[in-house]
């Protein structure tokens, strides 16, 4: 259902008929393929090896023939000159104005150069997100992150300025100082990882003895972890702050490609005007078009020029959802990202995704926000252990909690677990990229 024009950052793009959107995407894919082929030694090498030239890309079937890019290829290409971008770079080094890098969670970080036009593009893609989530000129937005080398909310900051919201940086403040600043300035919105959103609320209650629900926050934008698309985690955050919580997805080497809108469709829209998202069957590699079936997420950013992102294997797994009521024709990924290919694994012969455990843990009010999941082996047998904390005031409820956990986790994951109760606040706390899942098996 089409809403009023000011619902959308770009009503033309966001409500385009799907067939026209596809037509535009194919045109844009051909352009970025040609750009990569002509300007990047990395892409040219890959495409020549596959026997592909720009004129060969005519149809969607041709797109499927384009080799996928993986992080390791970036890493190898960046080991060459010009430092530090090497063969991945598509523009003269002197045109690069922005440097960011990936976190290096899976190995050597990827270095990401942007020209000013690229940076403007980052900002523009974030404007789509902010507008869809109800951010407006009247908002005062707090950014409690480190403003370091990682992309995090950098582009969110610039996009807030572009939509004319007021931005308040909380960069060098500690958690308590950030909370006080948020309260004193009466900020209306902030951006953080789900883990930190919960941590801040906890801090407000414990360190300041205040209820953050009373601070008038209207909306929170989450990124960095899938929590805001997990209904029980989203509810915990919304209950803690008394406001709407929205999800967003992006990556340093890709761009800001997905967002939840105010209609909350149970997933995230893809910005299909600026990105091509392909879901590929986990076994056959063929495109997945029907809703509800898991596929590997492969992403192309159409307009990222200094270091293009063309058919990038994100290692994420997702599924299509149903159309959203907001009027956007941009398709929806149901439940956001379902997990990482390297996290979706077989335990005791059962296909297992750690996201399912978070959904259960966060649905039980007697449990604290933190948990840890360890998979290891006892002899030849897989063992999966859930370490949990009981919430304050629920001490001594281990037995009934574990009975309930066993029931819910069995239903959700078809697995039996070992349980370890830990004192409240003794499990690790994270501000970014929580690492709650550890697979200690050597050969799985």
């Amino acid at each position, binding site marked *: 259902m089409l809403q*009023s024009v000011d619902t959308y950052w*770009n009503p033309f793009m966001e409500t*385009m008929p799907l067939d*026209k959107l596809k037509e*535009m995407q194919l*045109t844009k894919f051909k352009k970025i393929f040609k750009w990569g082929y002509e300007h990047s030694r990395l892409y040219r090498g890959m495409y020549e090896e596959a026997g592909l030239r720009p004129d060969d890309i005519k149809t969607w079937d041709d797109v499927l023939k384009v080799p996928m890019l993986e992080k390791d290829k970036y890493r190898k290409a960046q080991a060459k000159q010009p430092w530090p971008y090497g063969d991945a770079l598509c523009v003269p080094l002197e045109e690069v104005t922005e440097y960011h890098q990936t976190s290096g969670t899976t190995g050597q970080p990827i270095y990401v150069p942007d020209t000013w*036009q690229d*940076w*403007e*593009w980052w900002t523009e893609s974030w404007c789509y997100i902010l507008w869809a989530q109800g951010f407006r000129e009247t908002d005062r937005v707090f950014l409690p992150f480190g403003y370091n080398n990682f992309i995090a909310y950098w582009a969110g900051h610039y996009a807030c300025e572009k939509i004319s919201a007021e931005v308040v940086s909380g960069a060098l403040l500690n958690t308590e100082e950030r909370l006080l600043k948020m309260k004193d300035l009466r900020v209306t919105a902030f951006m953080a990882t789900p883990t930190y959103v919960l941590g801040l609320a906890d801090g407000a209650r414990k360190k300041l003895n205040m209820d953050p629900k009373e601070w008038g926050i209207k909306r929170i934008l989450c990124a960095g972890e899938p929590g805001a698309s997990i209904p029980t985690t989203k509810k915990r955050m919304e209950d803690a702050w008394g406001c709407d919580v929205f999800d967003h997805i992006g990556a340093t080497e890709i761009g800001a490609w997905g967002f939840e809108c105010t209609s909350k469709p149970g997933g995230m829209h893809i910005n299909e005007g600026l990105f091509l998202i392909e879901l590929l069957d986990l076994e056959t590699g063929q495109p997945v078009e029907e809703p509800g079936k898991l596929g590997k997420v492969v992403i192309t950013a159409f307009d990222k020029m200094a270091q293009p992102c063309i058919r990038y294997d994100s290692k994420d797994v997702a599924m299509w959802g149903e159309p959203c009521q907001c009027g956007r024709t941009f398709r929806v990924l149901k439940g956001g990202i379902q997990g990482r290919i390297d996290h979706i694994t077989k335990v005791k012969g059962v296909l297992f995704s750690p996201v399912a455990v978070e959904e259960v843990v966060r649905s039980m009010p007697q449990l604290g926000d933190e948990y840890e999941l360890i998979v290891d082996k006892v002899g030849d047998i897989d063992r999966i252990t859930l370490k949990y904390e009981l919430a304050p005031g629920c001490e001594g409820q281990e037995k009934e909690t574990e009975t309930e956990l066993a029931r819910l986790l069995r239903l959700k994951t078809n697995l039996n677990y070992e349980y370890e109760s830990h004192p409240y606040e003794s499990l690790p706390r994270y501000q970014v990229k929580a690492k709650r899942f550890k697979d200690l098996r050597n050969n799985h």
Partner: protein
Amino acid sequence: MAAQVNLREIANAISNIMQEVDKLKEMGSGIKCVEMNVVRMSAMIKMLELDITDVADVLGA
């Protein structure tokens, strides 16, 4: 709503502005304050091309 807006007319205006900016770039060649501000102007106009012109082209507006 959006249908009342002439998409092609906006796209044409964007194209005209880009041409003027290109002219400015040429005229101010070697003058840093012109060159560097033109880089920023061009980037912003490019975003309008992505937002509007690309859509107008595919919709045949």
